[in-house]
C-alpha cells in the first residue's frame, strides 16, 4: 500500500476499514516523510475549522429567527411518511440485493434509481417508453379513479388507486386562478415507482389536467447509463415548478376540505 495523500486523508477522516487503518498506522511509524505529510494535512484542516468557526461566530440575527417562527408550521402526515419511507426502504432493499458485479462497485448509496422526466419543457432525459406511464401529461379522463381522487380525497393520507397509492401533498391556486394539487403516486410492480405530479382544475369544465409529472423507479440493471440521483432532483424539480406557478397557498387541511365539500367552488 502506498501512503498517498488520498489514503492519508481517508485515514485522518476515519474512512478506512479498521484493518487498513491499522496497516496505515504501521507504515506511518516507518515513514517519517509520510508522517510529515499527515501532520500538514491535519494542521491545515484544523486551521480551516478554526478560521470558519471564527468567521461564523455570533448569534443568528433576530430577523432570521423571526422568519422561521413566522413561517407556516409543516403539517405532520404520519401516514404519508410511513408510505414514503416504506417505499424507500423497499427501493433500497431492491438495490442492495446481491448481484454479481455489483459487489465490486463502490457503495453508491441511493443514487442508483433512474430518473425519468416529462413536462417542464425539460424534454425526455431518456429514450425509454416508461416515462410518466402512470400520470401522463394532459387531461385526466373524468370517469377515472385519479379524477375522483383529485376531486374528493384530502391531502395527507394515502388512498389506493389501480395505479398505486395516491397521496395529496398540497393544494394551491395558480396564477390563472385555478385550483391545483400536487400529489404522489406510489406503485409497486416489477420496479418500484414514485411519481410526483401537479394537476390543475378548469373551473368551468371541472376537468383536471396534469401539468407536471415526474417519475422515478429502480433501474433494471447497473449497466444502464441513466443513473441519476433520484428523489432530491425530483423534489427540486417539482418545487421549482410549483414556485413558478403558485399564486396563493398551500391551503390548510380545513380550507382544502371546505373546497372539496363545495365541489371546488371559488370561496
Amino acid at each position, binding site marked *: 500500500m502506498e501512503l498517498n495523500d488520498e489514503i492519508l486523508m481517508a485515514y485522518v477522516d476515519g474512512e478506512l476499514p479498521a484493518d487498513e487503518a491499522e496497516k496505515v498506522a504501521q507504515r506511518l511509524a516507518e515513514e517519517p516523510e509520510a508522517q510529515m505529510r499527515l501532520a500538514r494535512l491535519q494542521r*491545515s484542516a484544523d*486551521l480551516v475549522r*478554526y478560521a470558519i468557526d471564527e468567521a*461564523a461566530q455570533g448569534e443568528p440575527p433576530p430577523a432570521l429567527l423571526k422568519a*422561521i417562527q413566522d413561517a407556516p408550521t409543516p403539517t405532520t402526515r404520519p401516514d*404519508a411518511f410511513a408510505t414514503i419511507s416504506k417505499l424507500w426502504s423497499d427501493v433500497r432493499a431492491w438495490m442492495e440485493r446481491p448481484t454479481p458485479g455489483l459487489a465490486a462497485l463502490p457503495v*453508491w448509496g441511493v443514487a442508483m434509481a433512474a430518473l425519468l422526466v416529462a413536462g417542464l419543457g425539460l424534454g425526455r432525459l431518456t429514450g425509454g417508453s416508461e416515462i410518466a406511464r402512470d400520470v401522463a401529461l394532459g387531461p385526466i379522463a373524468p370517469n377515472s379513479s385519479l379524477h375522483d381522487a383529485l376531486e374528493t380525497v384530502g391531502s395527507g393520507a394515502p388512498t389506493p388507486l389501480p395505479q398505486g397509492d395516491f397521496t395529496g*401533498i398540497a393544494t394551491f391556486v395558480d396564477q390563472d386562478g385555478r385550483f391545483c394539487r400536487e400529489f404522489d403516486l406510489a406503485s409497486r410492480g416489477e420496479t418500484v415507482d414514485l411519481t410526483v405530479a401537479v394537476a390543475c382544475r378548469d373551473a368551468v369544465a371541472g376537468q383536471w389536467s396534469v401539468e407536471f409529472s415526474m417519475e422515478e423507479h429502480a433501474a433494471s440493471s447497473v449497466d444502464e447509463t441513466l443513473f441519476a440521483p433520484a428523489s432530491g432532483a425530483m423534489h427540486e424539480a417539482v418545487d421549482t415548478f410549483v414556485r413558478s406557478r403558485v399564486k396563493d397557498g398551500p391551503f390548510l387541511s380545513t380550507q382544502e376540505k371546505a373546497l372539496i365539500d363545495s365541489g371546488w367552488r371559488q370561496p
Partner: protein
Amino acid sequence: MDAKAELVEMLPKLRRFALGLTGAPDRADDLVQAACLKALERWHQWRPGTSLRSWLFRIVQTTWIDQKRFDARRPTTSEESVLHSIADDAQSGAPELKRLLGEVMEEVLKIPEDQRVALLLVTVEGLSYQEAADCLQVPIGTVMSRLSRARRRLADRFGGVGLLGA
C-alpha cells in the same frame, strides 16, 4: 422535537456552511433564511431515517446555486466581508492569529466551489464521505477527489503553520 425547533438547533451549522459558500455574513444569513423556509415548506419530503443534517445542507447548497443563477451581478470579492468581520474583533485575541485565520479564510474562499463544498461538508461539518456524496448527489469517488484537491492546496500553504506557533 418539532420542525422549527430542529431547524433552530441546526442554525449554527447551517450559517457556518452558508458562510463558506457565500463568503459574506449578510449573504450567508439571507441564504440560510431562504433555505429554512424552503425546508419548512418541503418538510414532508425529508425521509425519516435519513440524515436531516445532510438534507438541510443539500437545501442550502441548491438554494445557493439558484441564488447565484439569478444574481450574477455580485462580483466575487465577498471574502473581504469575512475578513472585516474577523478584523473587527481583533482586539479579542492575538492579532497575528486573527490575521492568519483571515488568510486561511481568504484561501478557502478561493478554492473552486465544487472542491470547497466537499471541504466544508467533510472537514468542517464532519460528514462522512458517503453522506457528502448523498448530499451532493455525486459518486463517493468524486467527493474524495474534490476533497483531496482542496486539502492538498491548503496543506501546501498552511500545513507548516502550527496553531500554537502562530
